[in-house]
């Protein structure tokens, strides 16, 4: 049965923190279901909600509205007022060659990182699912690095790709590849992708493994009888049952590649984005804080907000309908 829900479910950002499951299943029916017995009080609920709402209004809505409004202005760099310029911050951003090439890199980066970390995570989960002896050791080893912060993984990655001490650079030089991470655009991009994938595999592994272990034994046994080829069995029986997990992970991995890799990229380009590949989020930061271009940075923020909205809508309107839920 397919979902058709009109309510956007807060899947993506929630789950990045580790609440995937909660957002993943049966959202629509549960959303507005009430307790039969409730308190009634004219003041108390507002009192309890106040701290949360206050924080959200001051630190979420206010800045978001400000981003929107300042995206239509050009701020004087010396702080003498600002001029209304309409949509020109947006057109400046969207039509500049630099922005377009960064957008292109961001898209390529997102697609490659998502594809690799999903497929490696799935491969490891499938293998781990089959193993009974020693499975918990494997599991521990495979998820141990799950919570390492992006900048730390960037730092470690940078050492592995370091010009002097990096083993990868040495390895590649035997193969005739003169790797110059930090100087050569494509080499840096390669290193970033490796580190970003490394950091994301455990997450995908955890979810795929738990998805696989939820496939009923009866289904597996039936498939065993019907089909001898292990690969075909996986392709036609197990994979469709994993579709909801895979789909959910797809969104997570896309948002991860777009936003959570900031720390990793910042560390790996060593603060010098000069001719290194960066993502759109990095550019928002760079233009806003280094370039002091408040209007341009805000316009880019708003563009990213729109991308996030479109992704969310796409997630619920288009892909979810095609995914088989049992």
């Amino acid at each position, binding site marked *: 049965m397919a979902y058709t829900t009109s309510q956007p479910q807060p899947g993506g950002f929630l789950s990045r*923190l580790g609440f995937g499951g909660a957002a993943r299943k049966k959202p629509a029916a549960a959303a507005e279901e009430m307790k039969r*017995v409730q308190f009634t009080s004219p003041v*108390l609920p507002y009192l309890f909600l106040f*701290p949360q709402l206050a924080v959200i209004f*001051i630190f979420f809505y206010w800045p978001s509205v400000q981003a929107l409004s300042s995206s239509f202005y050009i701020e004087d760099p010396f702080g003498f007022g600002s001029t209304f310029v309409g949509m020109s911050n947006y057109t400046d951003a969207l039509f500049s060659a630099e922005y377009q090439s960064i957008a292109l890199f961001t898209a390529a980066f997102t697609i490659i990182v998502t594809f690799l970390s999903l497929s490696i995570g799935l491969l490891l989960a499938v293998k781990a699912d089959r193993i009974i002896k020693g499975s918990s050791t494997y599991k521990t080893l495979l998820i141990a690095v799950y919570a390492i912060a992006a900048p*730390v993984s960037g*730092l470690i990655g940078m*050492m592995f790709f370091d010009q002097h001490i990096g083993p990868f650079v*040495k390895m590649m030089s035997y193969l005739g590849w003169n790797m110059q991470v930090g100087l050569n655009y494509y080499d840096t991009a390669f290193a970033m992708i490796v580190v970003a994938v490394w950091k994301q595999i*455990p997450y995908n592994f955890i979810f795929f493994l738990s998805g696989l272990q939820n496939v009923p034994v009866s289904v597996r046994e039936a498939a065993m009888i019907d089909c001898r080829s292990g690969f075909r069995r996986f392709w036609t029986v197990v994979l469709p049952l994993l579709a909801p997990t895979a789909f959910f992970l797809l969104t997570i991995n896309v948002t991860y590649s777009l936003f959570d890799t900031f720390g990793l990229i910042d560390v790996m380009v060593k603060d010098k984005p000069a001719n290194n590949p960066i993502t759109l989020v990095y550019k928002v930061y760079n233009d806003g804080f280094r370039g002091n271009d408040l209007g341009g940075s805000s316009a880019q923020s708003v563009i990213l907000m729109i991308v996030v909205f479109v992704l969310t809508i796409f997630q619920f309107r288009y892909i979810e309908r095609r995914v088989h839920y049992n």
Partner: protein
Amino acid sequence: MYRTRFSDHLVLIVGALFLCTPVVVAFMTSTHTAADIHMNGLSLTWGGNFIDTYEKVLTQKGGFTGEITGTSMVINSLILGVGFAVGKIVLSMLAAYAIVYFRFPMATLSFWVIFTTLLLPLEVRIMPSYQVMSELGLLNSYTGLIVPLLASATGTFYFRQFFKSVPEELLEAARIDGAGPFKFFIDILVPISRTMIAAIFIIMFVYGWNQYLWPMLMTTDERFFTLMRGIKSILQVWIGSQIPDYNEAFALAVLAMLPPVAIVVIFQSWFIKGLTESDK
């Protein structure tokens, strides 16, 4: 039944090596001297310089003002992690309690006002957030470091799901016994949420500990630097130096990843459960 093949183990071993080797290498290399690393590269063996390096990283004053040590960065990271986790739990439990257990006109609206925050991560609204903070005079303060990060609905969502799964009979019984909203919350709801609170505390602590972008924007005063912020400054220092302090950088990285790795390994089953289990 399926018989385990050698190739299955092989794939898993390669995967585990790929994931874990960098961490082991980072730790082992941190026990060598900087010159040693510069000459011989990364290392998989014990270097014997462990105490020197870590003592230096933890106690030697560095930075531009000469006021920051590794220890003070660890403390700041702890303050951020614990402060964030506690703040998150308090705010979100109260809000979820109001939404689930009270009947009031603005309930649905409040719900959506809170849950919209899940749509826009901090990364896309950094510049205006920074401006708001500087208008409020909260730059370089623990309040500025912690409170704005609380502006999201994650914890609220989790507690809401949990409260909804609490049997109705509990409230009915409590009301028959004459318990008011406060008594019910403190004497019944908080105690039965203990495990949930502990799990959320751990997850939120790691999240706070790992924050990078926000501390980087909010703190220019080195007294407020966290470990993640320190990683950035160590990189800025070593560009241009002859023999970069690789060992110290690795030691800092090891300190920064110790709590997240330890917590994931120790509380593995909790973590997996918290991650993958749906609302009961």
